[in-house]
């Protein structure tokens, strides 16, 4: 795709892009060709399983009272791992709160993420280290940060691309609109990666928009909209590498709607039985993204016991590392709450610092 569209209709989404056939055959899509090594296929598989394992462990930890809350990405592993694979290390990602798979794929230590869900601190990694922003909770707000960031890298003449993650619900917020508006006007190298998991907590997609599809919104910002099967890791990869490369080459922003399904509760605090049926969820599970990729591996004979054992070991190691680090982890020094409020002089907080210090001392003396 090129930035200069002669016909605006080219900005409209075509049919859902899907490349893994029911039997595991990979059928390339004409508009989104891609190369992939066998090794990479196995690695995608590994990453998806690792995501799923850590995700499950997080749910368990929450059930044991170890996390404040946890928003599972079960079912969305292909979308996140596939999208991440399309990026270079120096590309940036601005996540929402449901991006464990994306974070792991970027090399972020899951312990850092879990400390945020535990409530140890509000954000617990250096975004510049892995070019990955903090978990962002106010819906859609990070989409503007991503756009501004992309405007910034463009001004710097860099060829990095920024990915703005958000959900289907987030597309209703004014901030998403303003972000896409800015991205279009400034031709910012940003890709809006919308994981349409069909729900915003209990609210189904049809309550968010009357648009034919979410990807139909893109034309309103002068950028192409593409829909891919978010349970098909290769389709997501294929589409993302196309629009990411286009952005990298100065082609401007794009929007990708990865169609998937949120198989778990919205978060561990949610009770989804109030608004959707078990049958619906079971039906969704039949489109499991890991199963889908497994078909490809099997067709190519890339999976044997050794591979499975290695991955299982890796998952077990990762989850037990997370568990060991998180379980009953003490909080940090409460005095830290005054330390990062501002970069400049914070002497004005000294009396409040003193107050807390005295309270802590009294506590210590009392106990």
């Amino acid at each position, binding site marked *: 795709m090129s930035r200069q569209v002669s016909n605006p209709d080219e900005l409209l989404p075509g049919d859902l892009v899907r490349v893994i056939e029911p039997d595991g055959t990979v059928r390339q899509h004409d508009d989104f060709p891609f190369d992939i090594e066998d090794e990479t296929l196995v690695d995608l598989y590994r990453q998806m399983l690792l995501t799923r394992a850590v995700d499950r462990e997080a749910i368990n930890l929450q059930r044991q009272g170890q996390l*404040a*809350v946890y928003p599972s990405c079960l079912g969305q592993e292909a979308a996140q791992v596939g999208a991440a694979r399309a990026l270079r290390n120096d590309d940036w990602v601005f996540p929402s*709160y449901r991006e464990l798979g994306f974070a792991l794929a970027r090399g972020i230590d899951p312990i850092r993420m879990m400390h*945020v*869900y*535990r*409530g*140890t*601190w*509000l954000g617990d990694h250096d975004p510049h280290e892995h070019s990955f922003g903090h978990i962002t*909770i*106010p*819906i859609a707000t990070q989409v503007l940060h991503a756009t501004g960031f992309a405007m910034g890298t463009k001004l710097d003449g860099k060829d990095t691309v920024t990915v703005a993650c958000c959900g289907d*619900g*987030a597309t*209703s*917020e*004014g*901030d998403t609109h303003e972000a896409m508006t800015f991205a279009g006007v400034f031709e910012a190298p940003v890709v809006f990666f919308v994981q349409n998991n069909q729900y*915003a*907590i*209990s*609210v189904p997609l049809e*309550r*968010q*928009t009357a648009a034919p599809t979410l990807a139909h919104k893109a034309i309103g910002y002068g950028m192409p909209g593409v829909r891919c099967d978010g349970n098909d890791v290769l389709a997501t990869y294929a589409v993302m590498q196309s629009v990411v490369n286009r952005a990298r080459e100065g082609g401007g922003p794009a929007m990708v709607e990865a169609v998937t399904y949120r198989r778990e509760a919205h978060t561990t*605090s*949610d009770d989804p039985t*109030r*608004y959707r049926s078990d049958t619906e969820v079971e039906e969704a599970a039949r489109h499991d993204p890991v199963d889908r990729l497994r078909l490809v591996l099997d067709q190519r004979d890339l999976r044997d016991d050794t591979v499975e054992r290695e991955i299982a070991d890796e998952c077990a190691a990762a989850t037990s590392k997370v568990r060991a680090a998180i379980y009953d982890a003490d*909080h*940090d020094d*409460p005095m*830290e*709450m*005054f330390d990062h*409020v501002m970069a400049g002089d914070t002497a*004005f*907080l000294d009396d*409040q610092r003193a*107050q*807390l210090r005295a*309270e*802590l001392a*009294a506590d210590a003396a009392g106990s």
Partner: protein
Amino acid sequence: MTVTLGQAINHALVDAMQEDERVLVFGEDVGRLGGVFRVTDGLQQKFGEERCFDTPLAESGIVGTAIGLAMAGWRPVPEMQFDGFTYPAFEQIVSHLAKLRNRSRGHLRMPITLRIPYGGGIGAVEHHSESPEAYWAHTAGLRVVTPSTPSDAYSMMREAIASDDPVVFLEPKRRYWMKEELELPVTTAPADQAVIRRHGDTATLIAYGPMVRTALDAADAAEAEGWSLEVVDLRSLAPLDIATITASAEKTGRIVVVHEASRTLGLGAEIAAIVQQEAFYSLEAPVLRVTGFDTPYPPAMLERYWLPGIDRILDAVQQSLTW
């Protein structure tokens, strides 16, 4: 019957919708789910999808359409899911909800009750524990109220919905599960009156919403010190019941204001400003403020160090007594 504060609000909504078919309830997840705190539980089943409905995820949209619905003769009760998610609606609240009646020389009324669960203490992640009341109380044209008991929650909600003014109804979310024995419907004092929850003469604690319970607990604990603390529950944050506040200040001569919100320009500032003027010659000590710190709300594991608790309150009483 035993009713929790959350249930009391639910009953108030049911009764209001039953009595006045112009009352509408809407917001994110208030319909099928019944709200993330179940405060709107059952309304959609009872009154149908037209009277209680889920909206798209857009807070400015929720408040802005509520304004249009009010102009069309409805009596909307929109919900903001959490305190920290009211901010996208700030312009609609401040530039229109608060101002339309005035702009129109009284031709328009804004009978809108904006429900906002607020405050901390529930171990939540960021943006779910904010105390934004000062933003609303500083904005002329809004009524801002917050109940501290189930019976008040019911009565004040009924009054808010019946009011032709925009009412920001702040629900102390950590007290949703607080229980009270009561018969419904119940009518308590008018919402713009502060109520003395406990009489005393050593010093006065002024609190509202979630901190009323904490203040009462502190007053209980203070008995051990031989202190008899008066506890005033503000109930209305805008306008303030200056007469009740001043009378208590004149009685005890010592005022400690307690709130979760950060100290700077929190409600305590306004109360201090009022009391030092209205009761200038009665004060034995300055008005003291027991509040959250002037930092962003901390992570869940640290919130108990940030939030005012009994000890911080009693320290302030002590400080006041020895000024």
